[in-house]
């Protein structure tokens, strides 16, 4: 079914076929039901289907509670909120705690820049805006039923405990609303959730829980980050030394330590340089930095190379050397997205082209009518830059000059001499996306909906933008065009084993990885042009001089000896 468009089968027929096949498999092949479901659903549309439900972290028997024995969890439950109510009947403060989390609010007030950030407001360089498209996007909101502005953020029963705490791997979320019929495939091929079973199987989140959203940011596996994708569910030592399933097998929360349902490690306010020291017992532990475990001097302190490497930590983020490339697990990351080509149809229907085959053999769409054209990368060398930890967003309110070159949607500052910046690796995403030509701002698009104006249905940018802006009370000039944008994703996962880290000369060489960073001297990379020329002249001159002198001596000595003999 990967080649669905070329086969020309209509979605309705396919749905029937899928249902039929599923019915058969339910009766005959109960053991392989997940596989057959997956095989018959377009992975690309329904990107969060999990075929392997084995938990990434085994129950270590540490819990003092066996949730199967709780009366409140016996059910029957008909819906998520019913389960939540049961959870909160014991975990009385969890709701209050969780409601402060960005997973719930989708809001972040940046104290340093005064900007209002979070998915609730931001425009990104992928599907552009969650705002107004909650009917789709809020499938990654840790709550139930966020369709529009009427969502009640004060009702604790709306919290989705299971998406993070289900340990069966069978819990899933679908978009809160149905959207256009073209998107109906997203709701197909799912086994109904066994509420009581998942409610009784709760535990601390494994990588697959966090990953059910964070692996798929940007609308697909590995699309957004490059260092977060489904390959991290069971990574090997080569892919990530900490999450190595046969090794330390870290859960996300091993580093992203939690206090009252608030997690350390925010992309909105990155700690570019942690000088706080190790979080010894009783000391600060609310950070997810490498240094908080490894210290600022993690290399051998009693040998030269180690001392020299420890000398790097003030200017170079650990990630820069220890994550040599990203998207290494067989899953590609999107590096280029061109919205301009979106909206092409075949026989009046949207279609896909899947011309990229990634490392694990899966085919990835290089064109989708609903989104445009894409390019992918694997084993990507990151983009390096001085970074002070502070992202500066181009929000929906930011006016820019489209003539001044590509817009950095989440730009950042940093320099070699500001005392706080370090050289960080980023995944750089290049996009061409719509903007308001009259007001020179980014736009909210109305992508999702079963109405006439949704772009994912009518393929009309003009209407989608007009409605998207209107719905959210943003002024719109009525004219749109496309602008080049960049977004930057700090890299911190997929930490490679020691033997795979960057060799010195990857940076300390001419045309090395840091060739693009200017304004400071780096041994091996930089040289003084005129001094080198003078140096060559001196060395070369001396060499030629002595050779000439030697030659003259030889000639004259022959002459002298001839004279003597004659």
């Amino acid at each position, binding site marked *: 079914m990967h080649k669905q468009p070329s086969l020309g089968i209509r979605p309705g027929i396919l749905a029937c076929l899928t249902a039929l096949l599923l019915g058969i498999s339910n009766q005959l092949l109960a053991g392989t039901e997940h596989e057959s479901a997956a095989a018959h659903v377009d992975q690309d549309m329904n990107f969060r289907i999990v075929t392997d439900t084995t938990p990434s972290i085994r129950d270590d028997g540490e819990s003092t509670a066996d949730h199967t024995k709780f009366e409140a969890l016996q059910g029957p439950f008909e819906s998520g909120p019913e389960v939540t109510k049961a959870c909160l009947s014991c975990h009385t403060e969890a709701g209050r705690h969780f409601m402060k989390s960005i997973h719930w609010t989708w809001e972040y007030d940046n104290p340093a820049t005064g900007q209002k950030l979070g998915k609730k407001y931001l425009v990104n360089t992928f599907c552009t805006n969650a705002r107004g498209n909650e009917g789709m996007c809020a499938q990654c909101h840790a709550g139930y039923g966020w369709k529009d502005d009427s969502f009640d953020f004060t009702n604790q029963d709306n919290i989705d405990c299971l998406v993070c705490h289900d340990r069966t791997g069978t819990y899933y979320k679908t978009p809160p609303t149905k959207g256009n019929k073209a998107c109906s495939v997203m709701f197909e091929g799912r086994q109904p959730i066994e509420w009581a079973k998942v409610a009784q199987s709760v535990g601390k989140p494994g990588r697959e829980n966090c990953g059910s959203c964070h692996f798929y940011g940007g609308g697909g596996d590995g699309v957004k980050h490059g260092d977060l994708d489904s390959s991290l569910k069971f990574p090997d030592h080569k892919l990530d030394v900490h999450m190595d399933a046969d090794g330390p097998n870290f859960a996300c929360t091993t580093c992203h330590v939690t206090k009252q349902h608030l997690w350390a490690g925010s992309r909105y306010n990155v700690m570019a340089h942690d000088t706080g020291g190790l979080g010894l017992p009783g000391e600060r532990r609310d950070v997810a930095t490498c240094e908080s475990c490894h210290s600022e001097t993690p290399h051998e302190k009693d040998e*030269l190379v180690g001392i020299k490497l420890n000398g790097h930590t*003030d*200017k170079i983020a650990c990630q820069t050397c220890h994550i040599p490339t990203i998207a290494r697990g067989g899953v590609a990351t999107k590096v280029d997205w061109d919205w301009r080509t979106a909206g092409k149809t075949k026989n009046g229907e949207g279609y896909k082209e899947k011309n990229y085959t990634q490392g694990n053999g899966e085919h990835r769409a290089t064109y989708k009518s609903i989104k445009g054209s894409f390019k992918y990368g694997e084993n990507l060398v990151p983009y390096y830059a001085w970074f002070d930890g502070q992202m500066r967003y181009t929000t929906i309110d930011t006016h820019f000059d489209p003539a001044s070159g590509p817009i950095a949607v989440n730009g950042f500052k940093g320099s070699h001499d500001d005392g706080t910046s370090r050289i960080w690796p980023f995944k750089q995403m290049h996009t061409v996306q719509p903007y308001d030509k009259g007001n020179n701002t980014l736009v909210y698009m109305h992508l999702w909906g079963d109405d006439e104006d949704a772009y994912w249905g009518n393929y009309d940018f003009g209407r989608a933008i007009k409605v998207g802006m209107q719905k959210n009370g943003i002024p719109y000039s009525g004219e749109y065009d496309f602008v080049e944008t960049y977004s930057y994703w700090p890299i911190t996962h997929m930490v490679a084993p020691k033997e795979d880290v960057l060799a*010195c000369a990857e940076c300390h060489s001419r045309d090395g990885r840091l060739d693009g960073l200017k304004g400071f001297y780096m041994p*091996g990379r930089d*040289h003084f042009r005129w001094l080198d020329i003078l140096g060559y002249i001196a060395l070369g*001159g001396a060499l030629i001089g*002595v050779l000439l002198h030697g030659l003259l001596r030889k000639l004259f000595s022959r002459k002298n000896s001839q004279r003597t003999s004659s």
Partner: protein
Amino acid sequence: MNSHAKTRNGSTFKQRGEKHYVMLYTRYERFWHWSQALLIFTLFYTGLGLHGLHDWLDFRTAVTVHTFAALALILLWIFTTFWNFTTGQWRQYLFKEGVVKVIRFYAYGILVGEPHPYKKGLQRKQNALQSLAYMSFMLLIGPALWSSGIVYLLYDLWSGYSWSGQGLTLIAFIHTAAAYLMGTFVIIHVYMTTTGKTPTHYIKTMITGYDNVELTEAERAYIEETHAISMKD
């Protein structure tokens, strides 16, 4: 070496005496010279690599070798400074008259077979040009290299200051410039070793320590009396 020589030459010949094979460069001096040569070659080779001019040695190894060789050379120079002052050999490097004559000799005299204007002696190991060259080696090129090198090596101690960027640039400039001068010195120095009686004469001298120099009466008497300096004949 025999007593007849004394009577044959008589006391009229005061300044110059017979030529004798004497130990001109002591064991420590030769150890110093050759280990210094080895270290400088090592430093120059690894230094060129670190400067990005070749990658015949990986950067990590080059840094390690360069650093340890530099530390060894600094240690050697500390010992040698001590040696120079305790033995009084430092006087060999003092400015001497006749630099122009020596330069004229190497520019012209050597071609037409003139004798060297400078006679080597026990206390006159180096000609005026050599003294000048070695003096600038020890007072200019060497210190420029080791002082900038030490500051370079200790970068991590001052990398936190706001001026560290410019500081590193300056240090790197001085270190590189001095390295080019050192390279130039070595090329000329190596060539000059071929200008002896035979092309390898000076090198042999620097290996064995013995050279054939004229001794004054007093020097010979002193050597015979004290055996303070080894004499082969």
